[in-house]
């Protein structure tokens, strides 16, 4: 048996009832394979934020997860509007979320900076009108 665990999830557009299921599932897997609780927490926060971003801004998308004994790599991609100014988007408090989203308690502009804070490597590829792909890596040691 291979010792790389792979998971693929569909992230539905604008459906907050399902948003977060993928990161919950990943959290359970990481606990089952014995990853330390604080690392599990960082990973699930980073993934949850990216998932929510795809729901809010990206019109949904997909998550691809690979776990080996050293690290987890999470790739979340959407075919949404893309990010025009990535540097600006990374700043805490900057948000383009519409009021309807903010009313639900999301869209505080902490998403990307929170992902960065909780991941070891964060890479973002984005193009206006084409979509955004977020690569998150968290090491286990």
């Amino acid at each position, binding site marked *: 048996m291979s*010792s790389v665990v792979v998971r693929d999830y569909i992230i539905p557009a604008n459906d907050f009832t399902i948003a977060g299921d993928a990161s919950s599932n990943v959290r359970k897997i990481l606990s*089952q*394979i014995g*990853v330390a*609780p*604080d690392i599990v927490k960082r990973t699930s926060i980073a993934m949850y934020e990216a998932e929510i971003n795809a729901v809010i801004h990206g019109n949904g998308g997909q998550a691809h997860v690979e776990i080996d004994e050293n690290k987890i790599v999470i790739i979340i991609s959407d075919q949404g509007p893309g990010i025009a100014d990535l540097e600006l988007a990374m700043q805490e408090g900057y948000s383009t979320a519409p009021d309807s989203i903010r009313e639900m*308690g999301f869209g505080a502009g902490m998403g990307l900076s929170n992902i960065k804070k909780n991941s070891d490597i964060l890479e973002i590829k984005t193009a206006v009108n084409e979509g955004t792909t977020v690569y998150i890596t968290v090491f286990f040691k």
Partner: protein
Amino acid sequence: MEQYYFHSVTLDTSKCKGCTNCIKYCPTEAIRVRNGKAVIIKERCIDCGLCIRICPYHAKKAVTDPLESIKNYKFKIALPAPTLYGQFGPDYTRERIVSALKQYGFDYVFEVARAAEIVTNATEYYMANKEIKKPVISSACPAVVRFIQIRFPNLIDNLLRIESPMEVAAALSRQEVNEKYGIPLDEIGVFFISPCAAKVTSVKAPYENRKSNVDGVLSIKDIFLPLLGIMKKQGDITSEPFSLSSAIGVSWAVTGGESSAIKEGRRIAVHGIHSVNDILEQAVKGNLDNIDFLEVLACPEGCLGGPLVVENPFIAKVNINNEIAKIAKNQAHRVLPKHKDVKEFEWKSTVEYRPIMKLDDDMMKALEKMNMIDVITEGFLGLDCGACGAPSCRALAEDIVRGDAKETDCIFKLREKVNSIAHQLHQIESAGSMSDDNK
């Protein structure tokens, strides 16, 4: 380690029919049906008592101490949980219940409600500390604490590090009796009168690895009839001196009681272990960072819905609320005993993460096992029918990988196998008859 394996919740094998009701509802997937009988996986059980409530054959029970065990002590203290007051109906006031306990044979009654007020006070001082992690999660329900220990290690630091009202009541009453009456400590027996199986476990096998101050746990169910009998014959009790707790302590029996007793902050009260699971999932995701206090109780309707109660929780709630309304009339002001010294009631040690869901100590092997579970699960129909004795197809796959079950425990897999053997036999037989024809 041994102490972890004591559980109040146990199985009466003679009553168990081997149905799948309990395995489906268990929040920690701690029950399997093997050889036609339910088996509780001890490491996983959190004593929430949900299976006791679910089982149509009453085959699940909670072990408590027998009523006679109070006779082992010269001086007997009763600690009635406030839930007790909701069991008897409008004619039976708190005063009557408390004096019935004395008539039953207890020398001293210390209301757990009184200790609950002290815990409320201690919680307020605790919450005033800006350093603590929010939301603070109530630690009063031992089933929830155990649930967090195995499922939500990231929330262990959010637990309110203050003893439960039961433990505070036990410590204070023992001390009071010792000082007031000069009774030697070893002659005092402290008995909690409990709606709750998990409290039994927390007395016999405390998660903080220290000895409990409670000597025995009696169930409300057991003492209900004796108390009712006494109260029916009870004479005039108006001359007895009563110093009972205020409404704040009594309200702890009702959901929202603990959280609304705290003066300020954003508070949520959640009850029922599956709802508790959902709110803790939210907490892990960071969605409750703007909440100050989270009251979480494993039983539906909180302690009033405990597995060891007699009265329907909704009726009990009316009874308790009537009692609370009476007290509120008598005591216009919020009276809380002053216990500035929170340290006295703080946990001396912490609870630990118990990674019992882990597949293997070696992460490489755990990853391989995870993949094996995926492959095996793929091969099942995904009906989660429970006929194999595991709660879901994935749980069976996990059991197989852990070496506790085999693929043909699945009746569909078994049928496939029987079909294929039958097919093979048929082929052998027709090959045989062909060679017969050739003779």
